[in-house]
């Protein structure tokens, strides 16, 4: 359980996090989304006590992180895959972490096996590929068998196998009743493995809802698409029924405000031949782009046009 309440973090005159409140619950994978510089990493760093909040609180398992009696057992953290001394082997890095909590070598070997690091365990971390570094970071997070996991961009740099593995891993961890807070820029990935999403922009909360709720908010969601031989009479019929109709090319209509059943009935009433009928589903990506459209700190001119 991670509870962030009215959290604000300022660096001089810039406000990285601005009155942020959200909760990541046990048994749930919570996706943490936001454009670059939105304050995701800062929030995560405050949660694990590396930085102190300017105001507000962040609690893990009901306590301030620094007050946890055994932080490694309570929270597994992977903030940056490069949080390793390049001259130290993966095994020794994990061993030193484990020793702070009296965790035995057997457990170290266990997480090395679990994350597929065995071939590289005794190589210096400086020579690791991005994906290997990522696996080492995840291994460190799993080390204490914690009830809460905080993973910043865990699939960054992983090969397709690795991405699949992380997806199954976080699902399994949540199914075991653990809290997982996961940030990523890969929307498709998050849509697949997150239950809830917390979306922030410029340090403020934009959305905190289930993935489905967020997807439903996207403009396209709930639009009925109908392709017919007779678009004009059908459009008239639908407008009369109180729907909003947007004609598209090739006899296709986008209809809002009525259900797919009603569109079918309307087609029968006016004798239009329906060639194709279905509901458009929104995507997390669309919903995200709409939500963060105003909150992007850096963006290219082209992308700004495209996002709209």
């Amino acid at each position, binding site marked *: 359980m991670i509870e962030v309440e009215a959290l604000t973090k300022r660096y001089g005159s810039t406000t990285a996090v601005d009155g942020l409140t959200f909760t990541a619950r046990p048994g749930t994978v919570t996706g943490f989304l936001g454009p670059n510089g939105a304050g995701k990493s800062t929030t995560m760093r405050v949660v694990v006590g590396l930085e102190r909040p300017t105001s507000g609180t962040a609690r893990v398992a009901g306590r301030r992180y620094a007050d946890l009696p055994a932080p490694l057992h309570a929270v597994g953290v992977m903030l940056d895959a490069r949080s390793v001394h390049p001259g130290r082997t993966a095994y020794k890095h994990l061993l030193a972490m484990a020793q702070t909590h009296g965790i035995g070598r057997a457990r170290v070997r266990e997480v090395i096996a679990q994350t597929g690091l065995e071939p590289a365990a005794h190589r210096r971390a400086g020579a690791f590929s991005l994906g290997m570094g990522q696996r080492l970071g995840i291994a460190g997070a799993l080390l204490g068998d914690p009830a809460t996991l905080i993973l910043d961009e865990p699939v960054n740099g992983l090969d397709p196998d690795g991405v699949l593995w992380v997806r199954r891993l976080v699902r399994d961890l949540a199914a075991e009743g653990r809290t997982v807070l996961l940030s990523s820029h890969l929307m498709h990935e998050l849509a697949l493995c997150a239950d809830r999403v917390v979306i922030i922009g410029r340090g403020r909360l934009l959305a905190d809802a289930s993935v489905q709720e967020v997807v439903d908010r996207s403009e396209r969601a709930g639009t009925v698409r109908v392709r017919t031989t007779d678009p004009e009479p059908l459009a008239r019929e639908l407008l009369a029924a109180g729907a909003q109709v947007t004609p598209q090319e090739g006899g296709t209509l986008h209809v809002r405000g009525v259900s797919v059943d009603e569109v079918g009935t309307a087609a029968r009433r006016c004798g239009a031949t329906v060639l194709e009928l279905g509901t458009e589903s929104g995507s997390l990506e669309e919903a995200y782009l709409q939500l963060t459209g105003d909150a992007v700190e850096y963006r290219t001119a*082209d*992308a700004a*046009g*495209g996002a709209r």
Partner: protein
Amino acid sequence: MSAATATPQTARATTARSGPTFGRVVAAEWTKLVSLRSPWWTAAVTVAVAGVITYLSAQASSGDPGFQPVGSLSTGLALAQIGPLVLGVLVGAGEFRTGASRTTFTLVPRRWPVLVAQVLAMAAFALVTAVLATAASVLGILPAAASRGIAVDLTSGDTPGLVLGMVLFLVVLALLGLALGALLRRTVPALVTALLVVLILPIVLMTAGDPLVGGADPPSIGLPDADPATTVLGTLAVLSPGGAAQLMTTSASAGPMPGSPDLGPVGGGLVLAAWVLVVLVAAAVRLRARDVR
């Protein structure tokens, strides 16, 4: 955003497609140097330390009967020399430490022009710093000179040579640091080496040559030789980078240190320059022959 922008891009690219000329590389290195904060801080500290230490030193010795203000001129450089040395190391090793070298050497695959350009940019930056630090040193001796009513004349005798030597001293030390950084590619080893050869080695050699530094009992020391013959230690001292550098901040008429061959400031400068050249060539060879991480 694909089709629409692709056409103007190709048009733009066809106008000038020449690669990295040497002038461009120098301009790039200059931009890289002055766009960091550390060079400016280091330069400011160097100038301030030179002025303040010289002032304090001149004040401290202004009570001596034979006080010569110009004699205190280079005292601040004993500490201020660390500034350019460290700056050189940071710039020389910085690219490799941060991974910026990957960008740099994909842009300039021949590599060595980058090293030469770094030397030029660093020399220019260090020259400005050195002139300011020397000016600060001159300002530092003025109050002590005024208190004794001695006029400071920088144009007569050895003094112009001394001032020039002080400026070059700081510039060449910056280049030595740069060369060591470029050779060793890591800040800590390069910094340790630089501090070792410039600061520690002269102390060790001095300790060997001067029993008093080692804490010997004065009465048991034999009388100093009336005719100081050239000794092995003395020769090593002036041929080491640090000892040679120190010669550059002495007056031409000061005579040799005890036991050393009389190289004078020019000779000291040449010895130091030779060291810089050797290390730079080694760095260039490593740059050509070895992979860049």
